[in-house]
């Protein structure tokens, strides 16, 4: 654990991880699924799309970049597909006509080798600003998979934590100064399981020198407050905008002792927020958490937006943050 490098401006801007895939990439993914295109050709296009997103983020003026996850489908299946012990059980509905390929744990889980390091190196090699290493956390991988093998959820979560820790160490060796461990499922069973989630996060981030972040969204966050302040990370990134910042009331007492990644952009609306709206969201955050503990980001990954929508939202986020920075100095 560490403090962010001092080269950053106050209220650094970043994003949660995923960006929309451009139409040519969506088309290529469909073709590969129908075996009408070679995977190698798809990978070329994934690299091109990654490069486009690195350029865009730098042009927009975001401070801490992501690779945009052009090569990932589902955030759990991406890891499960590459690890020992998983198979894809089939399609399961999450809502409406949205289905996702849900993995099943059918044997001892473990890493065969690095899962995200090559893409991290590729993206960092294109960028003049720091790129975050992006991982899905052990509790979420376990919770969003079927478990046919381990007698208890605890055994599965802790084994996954050791694997994700090894991945984090490899990212750090590859030069990652920021490592984010997404845990959107962490508050699924707050009474029963939160201690397990805390224990798992300790394993994941143990001994890391990188600045660590966890992203939590959609669910009963007040129920895990203040317990979530015990998670072994430097920053907790949260969706504030989509519920009009009501979460901030929860963070008044006791005090929010971690850094906060303040979500000031609704990831699931088409409309781009105005810079003034973003600045106002930051002002509201600063009434509860001191500026030195605040980073600015969207509520969630932007992969469900169009490219144009995502860009418009990010431009507003950066402009709104600049407005808020000026007030900080005056």
């Amino acid at each position, binding site marked *: 654990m560490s403090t962010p490098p001092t080269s950053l401006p106050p209220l650094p801007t970043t994003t949660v991880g995923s960006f929309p895939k451009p139409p040519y990439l969506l088309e290529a993914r469909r073709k590969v699924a129908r075996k009408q295109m070679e995977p190698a050709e798809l990978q070329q296009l994934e690299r091109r799309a990654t490069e486009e997103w690195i350029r865009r983020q730098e042009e927009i003026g975001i401070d801490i970049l992501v690779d945009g996850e052009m090569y990932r489908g589902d955030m759990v299946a991406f890891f499960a597909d590459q690890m020992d012990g998983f198979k894809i059980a089939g399609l399961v*509905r999450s*809502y409406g*006509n949205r289905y996702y390929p*849900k993995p099943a744990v059918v044997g001892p889980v473990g890493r065969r080798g690095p899962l995200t390091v090559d893409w991290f190196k590729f993206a960092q090699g294109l960028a003049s600003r720091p790129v975050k290493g992006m991982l899905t956390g052990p509790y979420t991988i376990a919770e969003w998979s079927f*478990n*046919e093998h381990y007698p208890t959820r605890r055994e599965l979560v802790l084994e996954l934590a050791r694997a994700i820790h090894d991945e984090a160490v490899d990212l750090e060796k590859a030069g990652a100064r920021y490592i984010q461990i997404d845990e959107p*499922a962490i508050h699924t069973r707050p009474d029963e399981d939160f201690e397990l989630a805390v224990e798992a996060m300790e394993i994941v981030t143990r001994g890391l020198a990188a600045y660590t972040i966890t992203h939590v969204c*959609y669910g009963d966050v007040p129920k895990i407050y203040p317990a979530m302040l015990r998670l072994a990370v430097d920053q907790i990134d949260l969706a504030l905008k989509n519920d009009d910042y009501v979460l901030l009331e929860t963070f008044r007492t006791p005090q929010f002792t971690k850094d906060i990644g303040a979500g000031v952009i609704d990831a699931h609306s088409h409309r781009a927020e105005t810079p003034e709206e973003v600045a106002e969201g930051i002002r509201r955050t600063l009434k509860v958490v001191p500026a030195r503990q605040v980073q600015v980001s969207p509520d969630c990954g932007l992969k469900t937006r169009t490219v144009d929508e995502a860009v418009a939202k990010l431009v507003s986020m950066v402009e709104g943050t600049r407005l808020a920075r000026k007030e900080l100095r005056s």
Partner: protein
Amino acid sequence: MEVRGLKTTVVGSYPKIPDPPAPGRWRTSVEKLQRGEISPADMHRVEEEVTEEVLREQADAGVEVPTDGQIRWEDGLTYFARGLTGFTINGLQRYFDTNVYYRQPVASAEVAWRAPISAADYTFAAAHSPRPVKPVVTGPFTLAVLSRDEFYGNPDQFVMALAGALNRELRALVQAGAPLIQVDEPGLLVHRDRFPLFRRAMDALWDGITARRALYTYFGHVEGVYPAILDLPVDILGLDFVAGHRNWEILRRAPFTKELGLGILDARNTRVETPEEVAAACRKGAELVPAASLHVGPSAGLEFLPRRVARKKLEALVAGVRRAKEGAA
């Protein structure tokens, strides 16, 4: 232990699409409907065909009391809330501790029943099933706790208004000829402290209902409301013995005086139970109530699983029940 009289059933939902590479006709039809390429009437026909397919699949597996698979339900809340007056439909919320989401109903005016919501679907299913079909209605308490109230400002009034409205729905199902009606109330298990209100809601809900009455809870155990739930005006109580594994022990504290819905197949895990495991659970259930009062099935709706696994679970259920009966003969 006498186990011969027990019956096999399901709790409600069933996967709407087959496993790839078979085409997910329901799913592609929804996309076409959204793009305006097919009409709502076309979509309705697709849902009827999928309902027939799901009824056949349950019958082929040997399930004695099937449901229509809730193919027309986007989720258990909006299917009913859209049919009542007083609700608008809001954004996505997580459904209990699952990775399934529902659109949250918001009560923005007085809620009331205006016309049957599920009766036509029941009639269709009953006409296309070789076995008697069980209609399922989401209960007033669960509907209230998962919705947002912007009108009543008082949880008791909101729940009781829904109980009154849904009583009309149950009456419509009786009118349509349903011999047995199931009401789902998983919400009770996350608000056990509100049992007095729950009891009043059940009295109002089931008032004057002449069909056999089943009340199902799932996703947990009944610690704190047992044996009080035995006083509710229902004939069958369905319980989850997987997520609520402790129910095995809790039910021993007082004689179980209702028929028992024995939810023993894990509806939320792809590991398929063996017939031996099912048979053993049936024998254990027969220690709690006479076998003729046992309705054996999954712990919850099967839509948490891929279609192929759901089907295998039902086959294991039927094989296990047969084994239990043979073992007893």
